[in-house]
């Protein structure tokens, strides 16, 4: 990276270019073209990485928790409560709270991001598993499915629509919250926004980085919708005669 957050050194993100840039115009295409390679593209890639890792870990963790909470009902309230609690901590506060323990590192950022995915993913997984109709479960048992077969072939696939719905929300919100990572490490699309705010509120950079964040969120959501359609074809059916 060609900038640092602390230390007050000059950040050559703008200022020597076109009149648009010097006048801090609403949107300077020249700046975007000039800084795509050194600022925007790396930030974009980092942003996607930050979000993907958080969602991946969050998904696995939430799934493990949901399995326990579903199998042992007694565990559900405490897990739910813990996830609720993590979710209510303002993200900026959580980032700062973690710094003394894990430092100004990616780990700090990921821990915070993961903890925000847990509530949505966990709740949707549990709900999905629980909403399997009793008659369907009875038919499965009556047909000679073992407990494990019932879970793998009936409960899990029927939970999928809720799981994917949760994943969509978690993904979009993680991509958005990941901009806050810039308060801890100079990475992700939050970083150029952060810098632009310090540099006279340079509009082009804010708009571009912000726009890119929205764009990734929309693309990720779109991909998940496609996955939803491919994986749960039965959910979109009307009775045809």
């Amino acid at each position, binding site marked *: 990276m060609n900038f640092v957050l602390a230390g007050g050194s000059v950040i050559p993100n703008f200022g020597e270019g076109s009149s648009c840039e010097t006048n801090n115009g609403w949107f300077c295409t020249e700046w975007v073209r000039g800084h795509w390679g050194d600022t925007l593209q790396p930030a974009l890639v980092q942003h996607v990485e930050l979000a993907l890792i958080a969602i991946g870990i969050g998904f696995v963790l939430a799934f493990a928790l949901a399995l326990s909470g579903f199998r042992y009902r007694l565990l559900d309230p405490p897990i739910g409560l813990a996830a609720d609690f993590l979710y209510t901590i303002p993200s900026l506060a959580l980032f700062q709270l973690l710094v003394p323990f894990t430092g100004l590192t990616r780990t700090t950022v990921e821990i915070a991001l993961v903890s925000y995915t847990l509530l949505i993913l966990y709740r949707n997984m549990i709900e999905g598993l629980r909403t399997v109709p009793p008659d369907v479960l009875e*038919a499965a048992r*009556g047909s000679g*499915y*073992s407990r494990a077969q019932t879970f793998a072939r*009936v409960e899990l696939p029927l939970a999928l629509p809720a799981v994917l719905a949760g994943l969509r929300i978690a993904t979009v919100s993680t991509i958005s919250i990941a901009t806050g990572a810039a308060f801890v490490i100079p990475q992700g699309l939050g970083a150029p926004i952060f810098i632009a705010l310090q540099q006279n509120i340079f509009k082009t950079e804010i708009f571009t980085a912000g726009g890119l964040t929205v764009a990734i969120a929309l693309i990720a959501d779109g991909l998940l919708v496609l996955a939803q359609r491919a994986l749960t074809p*039965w959910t979109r*059916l*009307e009775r045809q005669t």
Partner: protein
Amino acid sequence: MPGEAAELVFDEATKQYAGRSEHAVDHLSLTVPAGEICVLVGPSGGGKTTALKLVNRLISLSSGDIRIDGKSILDFDVTELRRGIGYVIQQVGLFPHMTVEANIGTVPRLYGRSRKWIHTRSQELLELVGLDPSYAKRYPAQLSGGERQRVGLARAIAADPPLMLMDEPFGAIDPIVRARLQDEFLRLQTEVRKTVVFVTHDIDEAIKIGDRIAILRRGGRLAQYDTPTAILERPADDFVAEFVGHDRALKALALHTLAEFDLGPPKKGVHVARSTTVRDALALLIDRHADMLAVTDADGRVVGSLTMDELLA
């Protein structure tokens, strides 16, 4: 995979739930001969569904035994036992995320049957239950209630189980479709010849479907176990008489068809097929204010006559 129909014996089968004084099923003993339909009927609280679920061990016996072809259900591995018993329930319980074909293939898949085998079998079964084979690719959400229950039936017989348990299978279906499904089920039964235990709270359905009827009273005690005719004509006690209804004489008429009568020479009268029940023929006469039936054969030719008096003799 299973095959031939099996004899089913309830031997003092008892279910009592902890903390309840009344039995759910109380020393139930009865034998369902192989290939026959036994209908369990009775008021709610009579334990008919409990008795049914004892057979596939969805509910466990408190005491007594149930034997399938002489082998105690307790000596089976529980999943093995269930795979060998076709199970049909009122809400059908089709797997919403599976196509009709995959639903029908549920048990064959557990037996390790190939996709190809399941495809062929489901085509065959769809035909058998009166659905177009193109239904194979549909999902349950795309079917009507009656169609779902047909698929439920196809799923239950897919692995050719020697025994079927049916828990109010037509209970949630409107009366017209229900009557048709009952007829088709009886036709199906003449083809597949399973031993069937069928639960209903509808005495008319019991009379129509059952080779034998077991009437259970509150507390899960058997009040009478006999053929529909015997139950209607010789109810064991007041409870049974009350349960089958004051119109039992009329109901009994539905158990006989005109084919059982010696017909008079062909005469002018209300045309009615020989396969018609006495009850329906009588209803027709009353409706037309007539008293002479012109009985026809399958091709619609008049082959004989019957007067109302002869009909009721």
